């Protein structure tokens, strides 16, 4: 068990290093662009060349990646904060500390000042969506998995397939048209302040709904497959032949077994929701992590992109790890092996 955990932790770390390097390689494909982005479009070529030289931004890719990692781990100070660059970039935490994600050229602020706040907003959005997705998909999945191919199964399956076919921006358009324009009961933007006259909870309704619509059908389908598998097992037949009622069989025997595989699927949805929030946050002007990542990617703000990627990949590998652990704990057959 300890070896398993240690192995997985090492693998997680390796994945994060590899992912951050890949992103670095894609973003930094054109060397020297850091200087241009830090100085803005109106800087002269001499200024850009000077800063490029100062930052040694035309070193080989691997060297620059090593320098970025050094700044992150607090081994070397962030070169962008060096007063001699004339950029006047200042981080109140200092230029050299562990977890220094560098300076955001888009926001002209240390990445750490921006990203955690945004991540918190997104966590609220994704968390609420998750709270709705879990019970909804479990109910749908179990009801349709009870009798494969039955009328209820076909009906619920078609509903689930239809919902998974609606991308977030489309359901955003539909919901805004219905509940903001035709029947104005909800706000169409969610800046999370009350200046527009709408309470914060009311601003969360539509973004959460958009996330739930796109995702719950998929999870329900996964739970359905697992439920069908369990319902075909001999112990279910035995329970039925013993004369137990359908309700007793489902609650006492089928449910726990049917929930083992979807547990992992459900956890992986956290990862999926991170993708989903990018579009949802753009539709509703929600000040979250997804939009920050999108803006940073469009602007080419490498420090922010790297920080955001590292955080998303960290969330992804952590949920995978927790999923595997939970799987072991839920299923004694795997635990004993």
């Amino acid at each position: 068990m300890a070896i398993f955990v240690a192995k997985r932790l090492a693998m997680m770390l390796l994945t994060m290093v590899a992912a951050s390097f890949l992103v670095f390689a894609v973003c930094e494909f054109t060397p020297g662009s850091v200087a241009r982005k830090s100085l803005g479009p109106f800087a002269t070529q001499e200024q850009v060349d000077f800063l490029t030289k100062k930052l040694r931004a035309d070193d080989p890719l691997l060297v620059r990646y090593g320098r970025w990692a050094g700044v992150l781990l607090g081994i070397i100070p962030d070169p962008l904060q060096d007063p001699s660059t004339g950029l006047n970039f200042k981080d109140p935490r200092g230029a050299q500390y562990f977890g220094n994600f560098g300076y955001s050229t888009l926001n002209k602020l240390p990445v750490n000042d921006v990203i955690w706040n945004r991540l918190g907003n997104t966590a609220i959005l994704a968390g609420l969506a998750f709270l709705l997705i879990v019970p909804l998909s479990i109910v749908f999945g179990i009801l349709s998995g009870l009798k494969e191919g039955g009328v209820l199964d076909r009906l619920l399956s078609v509903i689930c397939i239809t919902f998974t076919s609606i991308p977030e921006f489309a359901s955003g358009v539909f919901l805004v048209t219905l509940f903001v324009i035709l029947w104005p009961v909800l706000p169409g933007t969610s800046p999370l302040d009350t200046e527009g006259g709408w309470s914060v909870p009311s601003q969360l309704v539509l973004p959460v709904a958009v996330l739930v619509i796109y995702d719950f059908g998929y999870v329900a389908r996964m739970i359905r497959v697992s439920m069908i598998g369990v319902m075909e097992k001999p112990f279910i037949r035995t329970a039925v032949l013993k004369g137990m009622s359908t309700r007793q069989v489902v609650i006492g025997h089928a449910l726990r077994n049917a929930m083992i595989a979807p547990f992992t699927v459900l956890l992986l949805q956290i990862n999926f929701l991170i993708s989903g929030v990018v579009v949802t946050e753009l539709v509703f002007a929600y000040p979250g992590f997804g939009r920050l990542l999108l803006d940073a990617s469009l602007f080419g703000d490498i420090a922010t992109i790297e920080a955001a990627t590292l955080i998303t990949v960290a969330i992804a590998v952590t949920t995978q790890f927790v999923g595997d652990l939970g799987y072991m704990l839920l299923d004694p057959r795997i635990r004993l092996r």
Partner: protein
Amino acid sequence: MSALVEQRAMEATAVKATGRARLKWARILRSPTALVGLFLVGFWVLAAILAPVLPLYSPTEQDVMALADPTPSAAHWLGVDILGRDELSRLIFGARTVLVVAPLSVAVAMIVGITLGMIAGYYGGWIDAVISRLSDIILAFPVLVLYVILIANIGPSIINIVIATTIASAPGIGRITRGLVLGLKEQEYIAAARLRAESALYIMLVELLPNCRGMLIVDACLRIGYTIITIGILGFLGLGLPPPNPDWGGMVKESTTVLNVWPLMSVLPSIAIVSLVLGFNLLADGLREAWKP
């Protein structure tokens, strides 16, 4: 006499074989979900093919006069967009774009993914370990984040969307193929082929691939649907195909600024995307039900 019996038997098996193949497809036609899916996909494919011969406005031609009232009229059945371009024509020409790019992207991703999965599953050992670990790294990225970073940096074009799709979905396809191959590898006919000293390539292409076909076709169908969504999302994020190519996601994005006044401009391309994706998803579901072993 015995020759006759033998011939009869051979005829019978021949009928049975073609009959079974026909039955397999006939079962799809009996499933209502697959039929609806087939209809939706067929509708858009037909519209896309016939687009140049249909009596439509050009998708890039601007009718400035129609901008006074861009809602549906006798001249423009579905109205015009914010630049006065015919909505119906842009929807149909938009189908052309998406129905070329999505299947093409998925085809390339399938080729790469199946090749990697086959090699990993068939050879096992360190080859499997390397391919699987690399896949894990890519699969650890939230898919859309991967797309945004890639397209924002290499620029939006058909080729780049194909590249991004391949990078994002080949690992998943590889993982499915590998799982299927691991299951099939122990079958007796594979052992038989090995005893006959068939090459690894022959076993992979002739023995293994046809037996993975069903699952992979279903997966491809789902992936086409998902890629259509992704292309739509990229268009919506402003990372879609460069204008003036009509692109459904881009159409939604352009018109959201006037959503309060003319919601139809955003609703129509949204419905177009949903209907086509739904078509592929229903088709995938129908195929899976019909081909269940």
